[in-house]
């Protein structure tokens, strides 16, 4: 109950209660992990076993053939490549765009700044759902860029930028202005101050943005689904694996879908395990600043 450095002595009764609470947490954690574990373990089962069902989450015999099939026959090599392009693209664009905008918003006063900032804020709250994808889709078609994944990358980055800009602006605000002035006296231009002084100091928040935007790109579903409706070779994993499910013979290919879903979640889980600090830090920072 306390986090004082001095050791707290618990009575036997308190110890028993804490033990029970701990046991409850363990059980609940198992429950939370279960769906993920089920899909990962299931991806090593034979299709026969999956279609039969039952209560055993461990495979009777472990096989990797599902992954080979998914990779070679079901186009998952292409989906994975697309997912990587989408997530890395969104990440890089978000980092560049939001750090520049955050810097300008923090350091400059200019006509219409409040108005622009207000519009950014307003559109964080206005949500009209999937309909806004329609004009973007038609725009991409008219510009004839809908034969690549780039419109999805750009529109995804554009749609998510407000949060990242707010994060950057908040962070730049906390960097003392004296640093800018010192650099300016040393002859740095406005852009050089950003590039040489501010960017290096922004590292923690840039790491958060990198992680969050990578996840955003990796998990994007509705937008790539709409944009790749007629083009299977552009689909990222989220869409590809779900199209398999919607296909008429979907019921038969559970093993491929299990393997596909596993391919879709393993990278993001690894990123999460390595950088969980940034995931969780970014969430609360965004809530406070935004």
């Amino acid at each position, binding site marked *: *109950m*306390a986090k004082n450095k001095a050791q707290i002595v618990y009575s036997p009764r308190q110890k028993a209660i804490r033990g029970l*609470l701990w046991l409850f*947490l363990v059980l609940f*954690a198992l429950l*939370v992990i279960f769906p*993920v574990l*089920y*899909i990962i373990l*299931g991806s090593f089962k034979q299709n026969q076993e*999956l*279609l039969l*069902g*039952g*209560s055993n989450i461990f495979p009777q015999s472990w096989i990797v053939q599902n992954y080979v099939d998914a990779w070679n026959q079901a186009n998952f090599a292409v989906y994975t490549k697309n997912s990587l392009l989408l997530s890395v693209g969104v990440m890089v664009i978000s980092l560049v765009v939001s750090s*520049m*905008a955050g*810097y*300008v918003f923090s350091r400059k*006063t*200019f006509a219409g700044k409040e108005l*622009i900032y207000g519009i950014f804020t307003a*559109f964080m709250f*206005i949500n*009209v*759902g*999937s*309909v*806004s*994808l*329609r*004009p*973007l889709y038609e*725009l991409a078609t008219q510009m004839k860029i809908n034969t690549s994944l780039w419109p999805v990358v*750009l529109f995804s*980055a*554009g*749609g998510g*930028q407000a949060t990242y800009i707010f994060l950057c602006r908040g962070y730049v605000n906390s960097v003392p202005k004296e640093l800018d002035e010192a650099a*300016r006296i040393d002859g740095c231009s*406005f*852009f050089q101050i950003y590039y040489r002084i501010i960017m290096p100091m922004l590292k923690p928040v840039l790491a958060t943005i990198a992680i969050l935007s990578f*996840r955003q790109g990796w*998990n*994007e*579903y509705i937008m790539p689904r709409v944009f790749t*409706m007629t083009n299977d070779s552009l689909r990222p994993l*989220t869409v590809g694996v*779900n199209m398999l499910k919607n296909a008429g013979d979907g019921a038969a290919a*559970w093993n491929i*879908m299990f393997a596909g*879903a596993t391919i*879709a*979640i393993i990278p*993001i*889980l690894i*990123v*999460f395990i390595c950088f969980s600090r940034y995931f969780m830090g970014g969430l*609360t920072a965004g*809530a406070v600043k935004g």
Partner: protein
Amino acid sequence: MAKEYVNPQLAPTNRPPRPVNKKMRLKESGGVASWLMLSPSLVFLCVCSIYPFIWIFRYILYNYDGIPNHTRFTGMRNITTMLSDAKFWGSVGVTFEYALLKLIFIIPLALIMAVLLNQKLKGSSFFRGVFFMPTVISSSISGMIFTFIFATGNGILNGILKSIGLISQPVGWLTDTSVVMAAVIIMSVWAGFGNYMLYFVTGMTSISEDVYESSRIDGANGVQTFFRITLPMLAPVLKVVLMLAITGAFKDYEAIMVLTNGGPGTRTNVMFLYIYNLIFGTGSNATRQIGYGALLSLVAAVIVGAVTIVYNLVAKKLDDVV
């Protein structure tokens, strides 16, 4: 600026020109650069946010099926259609039901888990990571995982329930209208409670340890401590979290689309899913109604906005009472 520049030697002496000029020059530097640096985000704002929003207004009174020269002005017909569209208002009802049920389970669960994690039991940060983990998975994939779990014939949930003797006949989690909402709620609570839990955990760490200590000295037990200290001191955080949870719950549709696609029938057809199918649907009745969908999107956004406003009013009232 050139016009304003005055040679210091000729300047009127009552206004010291140097500081003014210096200030101007400092402000001036990087004017072009700052606009250039701001331009990518401004372009994004215009293309990805403002343009689609205006586009919606352009089509709300039109019949539009996605083929450019099929656009037809239909006056008030979309509006009258909407007023008598039982399917739409049904989906609004489903949305409210879904949001309410989700909130009833997700907020207390997130709160309880946050309180438990705050007890500094062994491995707290590990548990925190585990509980947060589902939120990093794409909602489309979590929808898919639960399709497998809830499958009637070979799903593992029915398998487990059967093997421990709780059921004798498989339950149609996704095909039986009486239980499908439970399945949807289970999935969305699983996928989302970690977010809110983390907000609560962060809020709790800012509650001073001294308060807990003095309450312990006064002999308060765990439950009393929670209701008398943790909850009141968490009230500001709770208010924000509730607001996020409400708007979030009303906007959910991706995972539901994957899990049930609104079915069976229209039992889980939330409004944003209904609208999605109007605009991008590829079902048997492939007649897209984009203009009508645009109108409904606007109405849906207004509904969510109204709920938010009502919530804020209620929260304010509660503030005055408590």
